């Protein structure tokens, strides 16, 4: 095992310029694979994060409109016990409007418990003016709504329910979640305040759940659905509500996989053809090694090892080059002053690329290896 490896390394080092060219050629292909793969992954992650990152991925509501959920605590603790569940929060939500001198503005009043407020929607992190809600009678509003109503921190906000109840709340803070629909219509308060405003008592309008793996949200939704009385409650998940987005992401993943497969194939073909030439170049050496007693299997291993060594060198250089390209992309592709994606190295992707490139290189070495297997030393000796 060691001798074929030693000979393989020596063969590669004896033609430094040729080896360098081969490594460079394969590295460029690998770097493109790494760059494109990580770029598409990052873009997809960014898109998913923007779409479902700051919102529940599974929601339980009453199956009848405008009916609230009573005895929700046992449901919360059951859902919380699933491994796939990250956070479970509850909300009391209803429409209302804000009276203004020249009319009224429709809003959505959302009473959230602590989990929903911070862990699911991340509202505390998104407050850019004022502070979080410290007591009953305080609300947070979105940036766009604050602009539309010309209301700022400390102002009173007159909220009127469809039933005609009007309560003035103090604006404690203004948030910016970066989602126009939320920032322009939500008035967020704590659960008790909203329950009291709408006369819900202890009841809530939704149980909201985030999961560890957003793509497994449908599986959790199915599990939760099986647990509940589906005549009374319905379970929805982000995937069924964003089917078009998912289709687009899947198409993108498919094209990404095709690109990766073509690159790997081109790497394998390049290595196989280049090593086949090496078999011809090293025909004389192989003949003499076989005459001296090297076995056919060991002689063939030389070419498998050459493939593997080229694969290791090319993947190391190619991955570094690909990461360099990605870093440069994050630094220079900054429309509007902000990078399109974050520079994030996914170790699993790098490891997978490394394994695939090295395996493909080793397999590519099998073709010249089988050619060397047929070489008879006497043919070389006779040629002189």
């Amino acid at each position, binding site marked *: 095992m060691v*001798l074929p490896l030693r000979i393989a390394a*020596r063969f590669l080092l004896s033609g430094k310029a040729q080896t360098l060219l081969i490594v460079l050629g394969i590295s460029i292909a690998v770097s493109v694979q790494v760059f494109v793969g990580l770029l598409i992954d990052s873009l997809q992650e960014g898109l998913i994060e923007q779409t479902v990152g700051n919102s529940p991925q599974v929601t339980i509501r009453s199956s009848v409109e405008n009916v609230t959920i009573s005895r929700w605590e046992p449901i919360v603790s059951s859902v919380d016990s699933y491994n796939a569940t990250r956070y479970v929060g509850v909300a009391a939500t209803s429409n209302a409007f804000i009276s203004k001198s020249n009319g009224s503005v429709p809003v959505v009043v959302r009473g959230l418990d602590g989990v929903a407020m911070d862990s699911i929607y991340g509202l505390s992190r998104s407050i850019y003016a004022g502070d979080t809600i410290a007591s009953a009678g305080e609300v947070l509003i979105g940036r766009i709504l604050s602009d539309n109503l010309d209301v700022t921190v400390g102002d009173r906000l007159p909220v009127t329910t469809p039933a005609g109840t009007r309560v003035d709340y103090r604006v404690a803070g203004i948030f910016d979640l970066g989602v126009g629909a939320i920032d322009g219509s939500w008035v967020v308060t704590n659960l008790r305040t909203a329950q009291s405003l709408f006369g819900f008592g202890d009841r809530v309008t939704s149980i909201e759940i985030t999961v560890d793996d957003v793509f497994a949200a449908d599986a959790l939704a199915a599990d939760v659905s099986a647990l509940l009385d589906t005549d009374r409650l319905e379970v929805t998940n982000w995937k069924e509500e964003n089917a078009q987005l998912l289709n687009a992401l899947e198409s993108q993943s498919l094209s990404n996989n095709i690109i990766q497969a073509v690159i790997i194939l081109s790497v394998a073909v390049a290595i196989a053809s280049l090593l086949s030439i090496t078999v011809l170049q090293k025909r004389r050496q192989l003949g*003499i*090694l076989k005459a001296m007693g090297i*076995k*056919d299997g060991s002689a063939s291993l030389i070419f498998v090892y050459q493939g593997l060594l080229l694969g290791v060198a090319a993947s190391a250089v190619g991955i570094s080059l690909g990461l360099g390209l990605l870093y440069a992309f994050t630094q220079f592709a900054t429309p509007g002053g902000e990078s399109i994606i974050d520079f994030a190295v996914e170790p699993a992707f790098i490891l997978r690329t490394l394994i695939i490139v090295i395996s493909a290189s080793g397999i590519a070495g099998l073709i010249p290896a089988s050619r060397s297997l047929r070489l008879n030393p006497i043919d070389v000796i006779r040629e*002189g």
Partner: protein
Amino acid sequence: MGQVIELRHVDKVYKGPPDVQVLFSVDLAFEEGSFNSIVGESGSGKSTLMNIIGTLDTPTDGEVFIAGQRTRRLGRNRLAELRNRTIGFVFQFHYLLPEFSAIDNVLMPYVIGGKRPSSDVREWADELFDIMGVSAVKRKPASRMSGGQQQRVAIIRSLINKPSIVLADEPTGNLDSVNSAATYERFRDINQRYGTTFVIVTHDRRIAEQTDRIVEIRDGRLVLDINR
């Protein structure tokens, strides 16, 4: 002394068209520890005969026994093992591996045998480098040695495994007459010290006359066999 090499009714035909028969029912045996030469004109079949003795080529008909083993029945790997353990080759065109240094080339048959070179083997290699007068090029890549140096390194390589047989095809083709004579003296010395059987193929009768037995081949047939 037993027979270390034995050929029985060996024919060799190269398939054509047209078919060309180069050996005709050759019966030949060499005793263990003997010092022999095979002479003949160019195209007489002497190199083919040596390649068959060296198990690099197979006879079309007949049997070859090397160190008591019937080679026809051995597979490619067993033949490779037999060559590695039993036979040292010196080819007409030296055949060193240009990617390796002289010492690496010399140790190659030992390493192919699956062993790491021990200090004894390295000492043996050093001794051979001294005997052949090429110690100065031991670390030099084969590609940067003269033809004469390469040929002497190839001779050292043929001896590293202390084989029972050394087959040498025009082993001094690249050497001047002084070095050539010195090389045969060293072959003779190794033959006497280690009981190694030498079969030297040459077209030069003066070289053949330094051996104990001369076998002449003409048109694929043995025509002369002189024990001196």
